[in-house]
């Protein structure tokens, strides 16, 4: 079975390639990047002329909610949303019910992914049992069961001794520890970024320094132990600067940023809009600018969505009581392409941030279209204008701050291991 993706502009940051090529795929692998028109024989052809062909996006920070909160998202609906957004690999966080802190849960997720998933699903195991921050989970067992990394995301490991031990212990299994940096004592009772707007609205503030002090701690622990550490969803100027300096001095730290943090500021909370409530919260304009600089200069390794589906019961209520989190899989690509159009990122750098960066941090062979790589790719129409509408969302949940936004750029076809998992032409025919 030979699939040829024809005539598109192939952008592959792993080889710095940015040229029109035919991507030749056999048995789920890339076997050649041929000069357009060179390949005569094919079982299936995908016309990519006038479009970009990118390595499939890798989103290293996703909440699939299964098991336990299937009314918000499932492996099936979440991977459907991913495929529609051009995302071919998702790493899913451990805060399911029950928590993914043992092999049985990991196994369940992987079986669901195999039977119902449209894209690659890589479970992330808990750092501590029950995400309680009290004792280490069985990290070896989790690795063996198929967890790609460890994180207590949403629950920072406040105990520094435990955080240190997690870093030391995880090295035996060559797995990354991902840290949600937040000093819970500083954010207690908070609902949005602390600043003029939180005081005006009378909402509890989550100060940027709550992130800064934990990023400082984790970098110090990383430097002291020599272990690799990944900082989830950077949102403050202070944290970006600390990661920049740590990298320069040789600390093995990587970091990610979300589209909502690099696109919006706390102003989006407006008149108590719960779709602008997430953790870390949307920050100031200055913080957002620091993120953009960090994305451009390599301080930030990856764009990750922190896709966090919530139903209306959790969101259509008083702001202070509403759940934290927004969905992001279906909007990450156009929001990142915005940065290319605005001159913040080069095309190659943007594509690197959308796949290769996360793959390197996680130690997986994704985010590349090099010969021999898995044939995970997205055919993108970079100029397609579309409106992100509630009734067209693939995710089970609707909690996006970008609903109604006019977006530019979209994955028209998504391929995982040589198999088409999303195609707008087909979808539109069905929807039409």
């Amino acid at each position: 079975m030979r699939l040829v993706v024809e005539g598109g502009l192939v952008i592959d940051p792993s080889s710095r390639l940015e040229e029109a090529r035919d991507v030749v795929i056999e048995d789920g692998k890339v076997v050649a990047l041929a000069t357009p028109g060179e390949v005569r024989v094919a079982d299936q052809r995908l016309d990519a002329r006038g479009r970009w062909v990118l390595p499939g996006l890798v989103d290293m920070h996703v909440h699939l909610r299964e098991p336990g909160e299937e009314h918000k998202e499932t492996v099936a609906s979440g991977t459907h949303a991913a495929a529609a957004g051009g995302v071919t690999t998702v790493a899913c966080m451990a805060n399911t019910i029950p928590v993914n802190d043992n092999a049985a849960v990991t196994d369940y997720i992987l079986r669901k992914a195999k039977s119902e998933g449209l894209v690659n699903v890589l479970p992330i195991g808990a750092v501590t049992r029950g995400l309680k921050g009290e004792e280490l989970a069985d990290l070896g067992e989790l690795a063996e069961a198929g967890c790609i990394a460890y994180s207590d995301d949403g629950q920072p490991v406040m105990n520094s001794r435990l955080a240190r031990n997690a870093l030391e212990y995880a090295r035996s299994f060559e797995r990354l520890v991902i840290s949600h940096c937040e000093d819970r004592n500083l954010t207690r009772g908070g609902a949005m970024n602390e600043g003029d707007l939180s005081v005006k609205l009378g909402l509890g503030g989550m100060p940027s320094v709550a992130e800064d002090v934990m990023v400082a701690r984790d970098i110090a622990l990383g430097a002291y132990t020599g272990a690799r550490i990944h900082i989830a969803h950077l949102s403050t100027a202070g944290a970006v600067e600390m990661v920049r300096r740590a990298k320069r001095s040789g600390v093995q730290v990587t970091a990610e940023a979300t589209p909502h943090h690099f696109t919006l500021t706390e102003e989006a909370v407006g008149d108590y809009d719960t779709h602008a409530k997430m953790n870390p919260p949307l920050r100031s304009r200055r913080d957002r600018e620091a993120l953009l600089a960090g994305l451009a200069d390599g301080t930030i390794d990856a764009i990750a969505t922190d896709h966090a589906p919530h139903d209306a019961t959790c969101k259509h209520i008083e702001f202070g009581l509403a759940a934290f989190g927004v969905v992001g899989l279906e909007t990450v690509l156009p929001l990142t392409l915005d940065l290319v159009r605005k001159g913040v990122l080069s095309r190659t750098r943007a594509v690197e941030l959308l796949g290769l960066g996360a793959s390197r941090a996680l130690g997986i062979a994704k985010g590349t279209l090099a010969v021999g790589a898995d044939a995970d790719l997205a055919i993108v129409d970079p100029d397609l204008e579309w409106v992100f509408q509630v009734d067209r969302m693939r995710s089970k949940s609707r909690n996006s701050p970008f609903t109604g936004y006019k977006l530019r750029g979209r994955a028209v076809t998504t391929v995982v291991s040589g198999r088409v998992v999303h195609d707008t032409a087909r979808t539109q025919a069905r929807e039409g």
Partner: protein
Amino acid sequence: MPERATSPRPPTSQESLDFAIGEHHAPLLGKHLLGLEGLSREQIQGVLDVARRMKDVSERPVKKVPTLRGKTVVCLFHEASTRTRSSFEIAAKRLSADTINVGGSGSSTTKGETLLDTALNLEAMRPDAIVVRHSESGACNFLARQVECPVINAGDGAHEHPSQGLLDLFTMQERLGSLEGLKVAIVGDLLHSRVVRSNLYGLRALGAEVHLCGPGTLISPWFESYGARLHRRIEPAIEGADVIMMLRIQRERQGTSTIPSLREYERFFGLSPARVGLAKPDVIIMHPGPMNRGVEISPEVADGPYSVILDQVTNGVAVRMALLYLLVARGSDAPRG
């Protein structure tokens, strides 16, 4: 609605109010009253002028006018309140509206019903206004987007308490005349106070000079961006003041990292008779209640000659009558936007 068209034409609320309290030309407030933020000087003065006439009604032997006859006002109080709740209820009754109180305990809230569902159910009974008190900031803004009838904020979290702000302004004007250039000091837990926010908007709109004071853990530089002067000690804040307003310090804050003890709070931020001496000789002392006697305010000051604390309560009824009149009677005559 068709059934209304068949009944004999009742006097318009404008006519019945004119009958009761004479003519006025207060500018419209908008459909809801969620806060004093953004209201113009004219809008605020308009409410205060109507309130002055409403106060006359409360001084009569028969304290009732037919202005809101046939109207229903629901008071939805999701947080404990004595003053504000009875004040709104009395205000509505003096205007001949039918009132109903729905509270947190004893209502469906204790059975897990959401605020929105409660409000939608109440609205389905066709009230003419819902007065809402809630512990969450923005709860009234949220409801105002969901329901059709006017929503009146009776205090939401740490956000706003507009009727309190207006009654404070009314009391100050009654005692001191124009507020232009007057020094008004507000002392206490600024960060968690909805009263200070509403007062700040109102006082700035009417041209007063606002001095705010509290311990460093309970203040924010934000207040300066709205034209207030911030102080970390009480003395400079109240020195030469025309008005001193003390805010309630919540007892729960004691022993947290915000204030070490109520005793220490009283010593450094409480209003004692000696401290009153720093203000203007004819200063007025205010407190939105409920008071912690012996904490933020000493009993001598609270009951002393400068205190207008009970006048605030009296005026609260007049101000709330004015609000109900402007939002319910006038609001229903005006086309709904």
